[in-house]
Every structure is written in structure tokens, then in C-alpha cells.
């Protein structure tokens, strides 16, 4: 053993904490080790993951401490060489697992603030040009080019403008925003400060869902620690109150303003009349988090990644019934099947994969036959699917797709703000119709009704909550008609028996 004591690195990410990382860290300290709490590598199935001198020890428990320190415990080898990590192109998550989240030293030592410093030397329109050149599109799901949005705000005349970061990460199976806030908060703030320079805004808000207490605490601390670096720009942290719809940008703005979290009609666009009626850049967290790299390495370098009109990298979040769940950042273009079957290792249950829902609870169910689809906005849109926030939820062959369709509508009913009629009433009516279908009553007629309702909701809804609910519903009906039309009631009864 070296005379210089090695440092034990354990993540303090919420997922690691949930799996006992604090107790583990305490055990190491008790054993005399010097422990550093770092961000997570994003290999969730291995947490708590212990790193000593680059070597990883997965799923560690306090009882393993002695063996790990003695070097006798089984390791996963060098973490950076693990296939899950080695196969990625980590630009936004370059620091994941490597730095102490709130350490300004660590941040500066790993290229932090370089982008901001460069931006300070540039004219506002040059910054916007760089972002435009990168081809960066909004990572919230809509995929709107960030450069164009910024340019609209830059050109708007106003005494006050704002940068708003949408960190209301509410999609089931997504966690990339949380990992950035908990693992690399300065990067996000740097991205916002650069946006401020680009459009002439001196005030930024980060809107974080209340279910992320660790992220909220880290962001508060980070905003405090780096205030002198980003000044005159300043960042304020705002916490949501538990409404999914507040992830919709205009509801989010209303929520920050202290109003009811209700969707606003567009136009006016938030870029012209946003927060408190002022021109506002509202971007998804991952969009803003990509900015420091782009400014540091250049828009062109970023655009070199990806395919078609989807440029750069996308942090894919693999979750659900999957063996190797975690954060996988990669250039656009990777086939969906590779992410599910190869990288994700198939289902955790060991049963065959039946479908993957991509893009959160309002994303389409993609059947295995379409797993060749490349991860690309246009390719997904062409088959009525969406990438959304790039969450993938994997299901095995025991899934009841009629119940999943019902769940989508139920989710919409629970989360609807109630402003527009298709979503407010349609979601509840949809659940009622799905109940008829599941019970086998007038299935053909009711499927026709669901189709009409889906059309009303898709084209009539004010925002994506009502407008996208038809995607999981209609994709489930389209690709898995047998779960709707010829339901196996014996299986239904068996399940009921099991439940009892």
C-alpha cells in the first residue's frame, strides 16, 4: 500500500443516498479512510459505488469496508473503462463521478468558467451565433433550436429580461436534470450566466420540483458560492408545489410569479412576454447545461456529434424494467434497441422486452419491431413517437397495454391544470371509456370513441399535457391491439387472484 492514503470516493447523489451511501461513507471514515463525496457516475445498478484510485466497487455495504480497503473485495475494475462508461460521449456529464459537486476548486480545475470567460469577451450576437452553430435544440422535448429562441429574446427591447431554467423534471423514469443539479450545479449556473450575457438578462431563476430536496439544497448553496463569479448576473432558486403541469413553460412562469400553475395561451411567446411580462429565455436544464461546453469548445465541435437535424449529444436515461439502468450520454443517432437491449442489458426480470416508452408518461410506446429507430427527433416524429426528455422506460411481456393506456389518461386527469376543455374533461372521460374497454364492453365502439377523443385532445389541447396524452394511448392501441380487442379474461381473473 502507498504511504499516501488513498481517497475513497462515494457519491452523494440522491439515488446513492437512497441506497445507503451515507452509512457506507460513515463506515469508511470510521475505518480511518478519508472520504470524498462526489457526483454519481450514473451507473445506477451499481450504487452505492465506491471508487478508490479509479477502481470501482459496486453495491457496497458497510460490511464490505474492510475488504475494500484491504483490496480484497471484488471490483468492477477501472470505472472509466467500464463498457457502460467507455461507450458514452460525455460532454454535459463529463464531470460525473469525478468532482465534488459544490467544490469551486474542482469545478475550475475541470474547465469550469472557461465558457463564461470566453462569452464575456464576445458580443451578445456572437454568443448567440455560437449557440446557433452548435445546432443545440431544446432538451425539454419540443426540440426548438436554442439559438433562435435566444436571438428572439436578444432582439426584444425591454428594461428587464430573464433567464429561466426549467428544472421541474416530472417525467417518470427521468433523472438527468437532478443529476446535474446534485452533481455539477456550477455548470448549470454558468450556462445561465452565458445566456444572460447573450440576451441582456441579469437575473435567472431555477424552478425545481419540490420532490428534489437534495437538488434544491445544492442549488441554493451553489448559487451562493458562485455569486461573485457570475455577477452582475444572479440566480434565484424557486421550488414548485407538486404540479406536473408546471413543467410546461408557461405554467412554470405563472408559478414563479406566484400565480396558479395554469398554462398560458401562446402567443405571446415567453421570449417576448414571459416572466412578469418581460422577454424571457426559458430553457430546459439540459439545454442550459450544454452551453458551457459549447462556449468552451465551440459550436462547431458540438455540432460534429449527432445525426440529421439532431446535433450534439443527448443524455439518455434508461429506467423501468431494465438490467442496467442509468445515465447514458451519447451522440444522437444510436438505435433505440442498442440502448434497451445492449447497453441496458434487457429486462431486469429476465423476461422478453415487449415495449419501451420513450419521452416520459406522455411518450409513445415503441414496440420491439421499431427498436431499429435511431435516437433522432425527426425519426421518432415520423412514427408518431417522441424523444421528449430522453427517458426510456422498459416493459417486459407481462405488461397489460390497455391498463397502460388507461394510466396515461389517468395521469393526464390527475395532472391537468383544468384550463382547456379537451384536457380538463377529456382525460376523465378517456379513463371512463378505457374502463369500458378493459371490461370488454362495446369494445369497437369505445375504441372509435377513444380515437375521436385522442384527435380532440391532440389538436384541441392548449399545451402538451393534453396534446401528447394521445401518444401513449394510440400507440398502445396501434401496436398492441390484442390487449384491447381480445382481452384474455382468464388471465385477468388469475391476476385478480394473485392480487388477493
Amino acid at each position, binding site marked *: 500500500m502507498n504511504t499516501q492514503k488513498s481517497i475513497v470516493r462515494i457519491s452523494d447523489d440522491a439515488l446513492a443516498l437512497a441506497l445507503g451511501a451515507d452509512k457506507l461513507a460513515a463506515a469508511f471514515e470510521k475505518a480511518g479512510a478519508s472520504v470524498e463525496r462526489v457526483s454519481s457516475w450514473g451507473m445506477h445498478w451499481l450504487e452505492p459505488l465506491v471508487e478508490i484510485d479509479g477502481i470501482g466497487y459496486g453495491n457496497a455495504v458497510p460490511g464490505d469496508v474492510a475488504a475494500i480497503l484491504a483490496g480484497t473485495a471484488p471490483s468492477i475494475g477501472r470505472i472509466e473503462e467500464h463498457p457502460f462508461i467507455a461507450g458514452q460521449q460525455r460532454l454535459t456529464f463529463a464531470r460525473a463521478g469525478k468532482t465534488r459537486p459544490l467544490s469551486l476548486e474542482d469545478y475550475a480545475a475541470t474547465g469550469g468558467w472557461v465558457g463564461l470567460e470566453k462569452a464575456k469577451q464576445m458580443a451578445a450576437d456572437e454568443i448567440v451565433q455560437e449557440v446557433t452553430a452548435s445546432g443545440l435544440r431544446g432538451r425539454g422535448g419540443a426540440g426548438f433550436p436554442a439559438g433562435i429562441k435566444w436571438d428572439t429574446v436578444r432582439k426584444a427591447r425591454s428594461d428587464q429580461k430573464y433567464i429561466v431554467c426549467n428544472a421541474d423534471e416530472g417525467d417518470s423514469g427521468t433523472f438527468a436534470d437532478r443529476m446535474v443539479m446534485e452533481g455539477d450545479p456550477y455548470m448549470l449556473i454558468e450556462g445561465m450566466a452565458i445566456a444572460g450575457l447573450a440576451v441582456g438578462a441579469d437575473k435567472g431563476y431555477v424552478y425545481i420540483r419540490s420532490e428534489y430536496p437534495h437538488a434544491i439544497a445544492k442549488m441554493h448553496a451553489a448559487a451562493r458560492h458562485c455569486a461573485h463569479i457570475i455577477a452582475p448576473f444572479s440566480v434565484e432558486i424557486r421550488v414548485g408545489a407538486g*404540479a406536473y*403541469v408546471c413543467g410546461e413553460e408557461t405554467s412554470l412562469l405563472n408559478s414563479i410569479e406566484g400565480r*396558479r*400553475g*395554469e398554462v398560458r*395561451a*401562446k*402567443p405571446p411567446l415567453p421570449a417576448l412576454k414571459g416572466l412578469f*411580462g418581460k422577454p424571457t429565455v426559458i430553457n430546459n436544464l439540459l439545454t442550459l447545461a450544454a452551453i458551457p461546453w459549447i462556449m468552451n469548445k465551440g459550436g462547431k465541435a458540438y455540432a460534429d456529434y449527432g445525426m440529421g437535424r439532431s446535433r450534439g449529444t443527448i443524455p439518455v436515461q434508461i429506467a423501468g424494467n431494465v438490467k442496467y439502468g442509468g445515465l447514458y450520454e451519447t451522440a444522437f443517432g444510436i438505435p433505440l434497441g442498442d440502448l434497451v437491449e445492449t447497453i441496458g442489458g434487457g429486462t431486469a426480470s429476465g423476461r422478453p422486452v415487449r415495449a419501451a416508452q420513450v419521452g416520459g408518461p406522455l411518450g409513445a410506446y415503441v414496440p420491439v419491431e421499431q427498436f431499429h429507430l435511431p435516437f433522432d427527433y425527426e425519426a421518432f416524429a415520423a412514427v408518431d413517437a417522441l424523444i421528449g426528455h430522453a427517458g426510456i422506460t422498459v416493459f417486459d411481456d407481462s405488461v397489460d397495454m390497455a391498463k397502460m393506456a388507461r394510466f396515461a389518461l389517468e395521469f393526464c*386527469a*390527475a*395532472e*391537468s*391544470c*383544468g*384550463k*382547456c*376543455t*379537451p*384536457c*380538463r*374533461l*377529456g*382525460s*376523465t*372521460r378517456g379513463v*371512463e*371509456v378505457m374502463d*369500458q374497454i378493459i371490461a370488454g364492453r362495446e369494445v369497437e*365502439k*369505445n375504441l372509435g*370513441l377513444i380515437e*375521436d*377523443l385522442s*384527435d*380532440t385532445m391532440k*389538436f*384541441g*389541447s*392548449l399545451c402538451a399535457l393534453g396534446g401528447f396524452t394521445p401518444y401513449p394511448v394510440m400507440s398502445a392501441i396501434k401496436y398492441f391491439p390484442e390487449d384491447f380487442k381480445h382481452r384474455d379474461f382468464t388471465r385477468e381473473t388469475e391476476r385478480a387472484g394473485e392480487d388477493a
Partner: protein
Amino acid sequence: MTYQPQADFGTPESRSTEQVTLTIDGRPVTVPAGTSVMRAAAEIECSIPKLCATDSLESFGSCRLCLVEIDGRRGTPASCTTPAENGMVVHTQTPHLQKLRKGVMELYISDHPLDCLTCAANGDCELQEQAGAVGLRDVRYPVEATHLGQAKDQSNPYFDFDPSKCIACSRCIRACDEVQGTLALTMQGRGFDSKISPGLASENFMSSECVSCGACVQACPTATLVEKNVVEIGTPDRSVVTTCAYCGVGCTFRAEMRGEQLVRMVPWKDGKANHGHSCVKGRFAWGYAQHAERITKPMIRDRIDQPWREVSWEEALGFAAARFTAIKADYGAGALGGITSSRCTNEETYLVQKLVRAGFGSNNVDTCARVCHSPTGYGLNKTFGTSAGTQDFDSVDDSDVILVIGANPTDAHPVFGSHMKRRLRGLDGRPAAKLIVIDPRRTDLVRSPHIEADHHLALRPGTNVAVLTAMAHVIVTEGLADEAFIRERCDWEEYQDWAEFVSLPTNSPENLSVVTQVPAETLRAAARLYANGGNAAIYYGLGVTEHSQGSSTVIAIANLAMATGNIGRRGVGVNPLRGQNNVQGSCDMGSFPHELPGYRHISNAETRALFEKDWGVTLHPEPGLRIPNMLDAAVDGTFRALYVQGEDILQSDPNTHHVAAGLAAMDCVIVHDLFLNETANYAHVFLPGSSFLEKDGTFTNAERRIQLVRKVMTPVNGMADWEVTQALANAMGFGWNYTHPSEIMDEIARLTPSFAGVSFDRLDKEGSLQWPVNDAAPDGSPIMHVDGFVRGKGKFVVTDYIPTEEKTGPRFPLLLTTGRILSQYNVGAQTRRTENSMWHGEDRLEIHPIDAEDRGIRTDDWVKLASRAGETTLRALVTDRVAPGVVYTTFHHPDTQANVVTTDFSDWATNCPEYKVTAVQVGASNGPTDWQRDYDEQARQSRRIATIEAEAAE
């Protein structure tokens, strides 16, 4: 005919001057930029289905019925939220749109009670209409969850709330926010659970912040919010546009009728004073016109201790004429007089003063403006040359700074108060106007939801002049005066005298703060804001005029406006908020003893000659008696007969004891009114009056806007008031023969230069005219003094602060000031006879917690309020709205008789009583005072009406 509401264009009008041209369903249409596609379509009578849109509210985009297709755009944008653009090609009806609309409507109807035939909105329901428009024929959903069967909220006396019929369009919530500015309504819950709620979920409309303005009822597309009258009677079948008879805002309404029955009053969207808004009084509190206490038959009696005797019109008029003629013969014309009413029409007021001047032969005519805005007439005439406000209401849209002094617009002028609040909130998208409030009390404008005054100068009552002089001191000494304006428009010498005076160190805010109790820094900041803040407008009310220095204060206000160049364009000016519907008009019509119509002095031989020629009489060249002088003369025995039209001087004039003594001394008092008011207790002849619903005529509001009052029903007393005055004149042998009020207006126009261009025909066609209307201003004058002051050069007048003689001392240590409340109107003769009393059933004494604590007084305790003049009792309300040392009450209820307490002090120039400052003491009490008990008994005795038939049978 079926019910026809006013056309609804869906979204508000755009004010842009830029025009855009687009094509809608193959037809070109050109509209101002910023107009929605929905409104553009409505302009060419293409009605895109809609439910959440209405043209009084900003677009909202929630119902999703108004979707359209636009060439080159994805999806189906909502036409209400999509601005029209040049070259846009819009399709409003395609198979896909048809299907979508049906789909949306099917969802609505799946959650709506299908009781259309028995629904109050049947025939006036937008949901019903749109279900027809989109061709919905079937609801296919297997419905389980609904909102049907919820309990109604019937707590409001005028409208019901039935949540089962609600389609959650939020129009009511938005109306409460955008139109009224009270923000009483909200949406509880979300998604399917969304439910309209007044305030908290535990509240109903009556217990909430709701002020019952009716904007939500007006906005509701279904029967969810509906007038109780419509529930009771049914939908109206015709409507007549007329003008409200309450405050000086002059709202116009559609009186919606079925036969001769008034179903409801709906604010008229084209009304230039109210733009489709209303308050609880005008919208709902008109039931007094049909109240059981209304007297519909003439009555007479020889002595006031006798019961009244109902008689025919001939007998009553003959009795009155004989007495007046006899008194004139015995005591001379000077023993006769009349009081005109600010509630009656211009034509009626004109006739009363004509009867006094041309018939009685004296100039003893006065009006209730004596007790409210006479100092306005004096002060503004002196400085600017006209006795009226300088702006129209819409001028406030261009104000950057609003200074409110001695006025409480959200209570007393609520519709304009709401208008002002929109500007103060910047709802028009421009930076919100700044606000300075000078008021001893924390009114709602000082702080209420979304409103906060930048500076509140909580001055000690009675120190208005000192505060304004200190402001002038700051403006002059800090070099903030607009010298270029002053040199061009005003008399420079007079300005210099004035500037020298206000610059004296004794007039500094620091020095005067001792008397005003306004911190010098606050005052300096307010003065700087007024002078430097852009367009600055002053709005004032009776808190300015009803003081011993009322006229001085008006002059001081005018001085400030001139010194800062805030006169002669939109957004600025000096704006008296007139108390009564036609107080401007009654002053214009020559109601003051010294002035003929059009503010021309009676001593001017040329003017007199004009009238003498037209009237065929000789006029007395000397001014007649003012009301207080008439009462003094009555006590002295030289004034003996009075004709009072539509005014209750016993309740409204100061020092009630003195008024009562004066009236009791007269030989013949004619009261011409709807009710046996307090003054009628001392009358010998009662001539039943007619309400504003029962006559034709005109009212002139606070912005000099002349608007038609239209008869919507036959007078229950048989005659309109102008007919009664004419009948009295003819009973006295004057031979008048007007057949319609339009002929009276023609006479006014003929004799009054500022009314030269006014006629009923023009008013009917153009809706309204703002005087002066003459060759120089053929279409009227929204803004006055545009190119120069009417009097020539604006006149600066030095206003020295002279403290009122009404002083606090050990016996009377507190200062009483008085005011109004939203739901009641003046002496309450009208509003007390409506359900409005549910909001304000009695006058309360507001007292600061410290003063209350010193006296052991708690809220709801009976307290005695005593001054040097008299005492009364009422219940206390402990609140920090008033400053320590100040108490406040309203004067709406005769059993309180606040004017028993007020004193004889009055404005030095006009005798306007000093209602706003009385030194008082407050103490615990067991109940009514002796005076109140005696008064009640006297009133009860005096109001007896003999039942003639019954007596004859005995």
C-alpha cells in the same frame, strides 16, 4: 322578438394605428394590427364558435372551440389568441375543424345538466347557442363523473351562482380581475376538480370580497351566474339605453324589459363613461323605484303636525299655487324660493330655476351642489375660467402619475375607480401609473390587492391647503415648475407673486408638517413625483370641497396643475369627481342664486336681457339667497315658502337642528320627491316624483358628458317631474306649454352658448356630447383648455392656509370626518330601499385602536358621538384605517343623523359646509340619544297619512 344581447366581437379592440389585411374564408378584411383573428372574422360577420372569449376580456384560449386553420401553419391555432397578420389566409370551417369542435362540445355537454327548457338562461345561453352552431347531435360518452347536482349559492341578493352549470371558462374570474379589479373570484382545485370560488372554498359570494358589481354575471356565458330577476321573470324581449341615476360617473345601461317590467339593467358596452362596466348600485339597486314606500298620490295638509291627506293633482297644485301666490302678495317675491335637484334631469332642473326666477320673481334658487361641489365651481372658474373638470375619464389611460386627494373612487365612483385601477396596474401593457393619495384615511386605493399607493399622505383633517402649499413650495424651490408653460399660458406676474408666497420658509414641508402631520420627506417625494413623473392628473372629491377652505383647496390644486404644465392634454388635468348623477348638470343649468344657465352672473344685463326676451319677464338683477341664508331668513320670518325638488336638505345639510327650525318656520314647503323623506316631515304639500326610469331627459356627468335618459316605463305617479313643475307653474298662471323635454333642451341650447350644439336628436345619434358644444367645438370637448385657458391667461391665486375655527380641545379631542361606502348612496333614500342594505345596514364609527382602547370601546359597541353642535349614537368599528385622533363615519342612514353633529362652519367663498372636519368626543353609550328618540317620534307623527275612506265611514 327574442332576446338580443349586444354584439360580442370576442376579444378587445386593438388601438394600433397600423392596419393589416388578411383573408378569412376567401374574404379580405382589414383590421388594426394586434386584432385577433377571431375579432377580424367578427368584423365581417363570420362568427367563429367561442365560449371563453368575450370582448370585454383579454383572450384566454381555454375553450378550444375557436380553432381555425391557417395556411402555412401547423395544427389548429385558437383564433382568439392568434393576432391577425398581413397576408394570412384563414379557414374557419373545414371538416377537421368541424370534427374538433364537435368533439370539444361533446365533452362540455357530457358534464352539463340538460334542463335547457327550464333553465334561466334559455334563449340567452352561449353554450346552447354554440352547441347548435357546431352541430352536436349526440353525447356518446359512458359518463360517470360529473359536476351536476351541486348546491347553489344564493347568498347574494341580486344573483345566483349554480356551479352545476359552470363550464369553467374563467370569464367571471377574469372579469373580476380585469374589469372590476377586486379579484374576489378564483378557481379552486385543478383539472376535473376545477371550481369557481368566491375567495376561499369555505366562503359564499356574500361573505367573500365580492362587491357585487355584476361584471361576473355579465361575463358568464351560461346560467351559472344569473340575475335573480331573470330566474324569476324570464328573458327580456326589448331594451332601452339610458343613463344611471346614481353617482357622477354617468354609466349608461341597457334597461332590459319585458312589457313595462324592468328585468335587468345591463351596462352598455358603447357607453363612453363606463365602457360596459357597472357597480352594485346602478346594476342592481334600482328596486327603490317600485318600493312599497314610494308615494304615488299628491298629498297636502294645513299644518305639519297633521296627518297627510291624499288629494287629486288639481287640488294639490291648486293648494300649493294659492299659498305661494298669497305669500308672494303678502311678503314679496323674496319670501319664495326653490331648490333644484342634482338627481333630476337638466331639463327639470332648468325648469325649477326658471320657475323661481321667471315665476316667483326672485333669484332664491339653490341646489345640493351647495353642500358638495360649489367650491369646485368657484375655484376652477376663478383660475381656469370654467366651473368643471378638465378631462374625460378615458384621459386617465394616458396618465403616468395619478394624485387622488379627498376622494375615494373605489367606493364613491366605483366604475371610474375600476378604470383608474387598470391604469395603476398597467393592465394596458404600459408601465403602471404611479399613485399619490392624500387622505386622512387608508382608503382601498392606498392598499388593496394589486394596488399600492407610492405615497400616502395621511394628513390631519382640515389641512389640505397646507399640504398643497407645501407641495407647491417643493416644486418652486426645487426648480420643478414648468416655466415655459406658465409663460405661454398663464399670467407671469401673478405666477411670480404666487411662487414668492409658496417659497416662503413658513410654507416648507418641514415647517408645515407640524400642522399637517405629513412627514416632510414623504411630502417632498410626492411633490417631486407629481412634477417630474410625466403626465400627472389630479382627481379630487368632497374631501377637498367640504371644508372651510374648500375653495382655497380647489384653487391650490389648479395652481399645482398650472405650475407643472399638467393641463390641456390627455393624461393630465384637474378632475372633480362629482357626487351625484347630475350635479354637474344642475350647476350648468343655473341652479345657483347668482348664476343663469352657463355660469353667467345674474348681474350681467346683457345675459339677463337674453333670458328676459325669451321668457317674457323682467329678472331681478341681484343674486338670491343660498340654502343656509334661506333657512336663516325663515327663522327671521322673511323667507316663507320653498319648493324642494328631489333633495332632502334636512338629512344632507349641516346642523340638522338649524335646518329643522328653518323649515318649521315656513308657511308653505312643497316637497317633490319619490318618498316621504326627512324634509317632508316639515312639508305642507307633497308632490309625488318620478324615477329616472319614467322620464325622458339628459344627465351631465363629471366629465361634462351630456347623455340621454330614456323613459322605459309609465310613471307610477302619473307625471314625469318636468311635467309636475310645469303643472305647478301653470297652476300659478305662468302658461307654460312644453310637450317634451327635447323642447326644454332646445331652449337651453338657444340661451346657453356652451350648449349651443346640443339637441336630443344629436344625443340620440351620437350617444353623448361633452360641453362646450358650439361653433368652436362642434363635436364637443373631451379635454378643455387645449390651446389656452378659457378665461384667457391661467390665473395663479395665493392660497394662505387658515386653520379652521373648528378646533379640538379637551372636551372634543378627536376629529370626525365623513364619507361614503360603495353599497349606499348619499342619504340612502334610494339604496336603503334595496337589498344593498345587506352590505351596509347602519352607519358605523371607525376609530383607531389606540383611541378605542383609551375609551374602553370595542367593535360593535354603541358609542356616543358628540360635538359642539349636537350628539348622536352609533356602533363602533375599531380599525387602523383611520389615524389616531381621527374618527370616521358614513352618513347614509337617517337614524344616525351624522349631521346633527356637524357644525355651521363653511367654505369662505361658497358656504359649502365643513362636513369633513368636526371636533368630537366619543364615549360608551347604552343606545340612542334623546334627540334620536324625539326625532323618531316626530318623524313617525309627521309621516301619518289619513285614510280618508275609513274616516268617512265612521
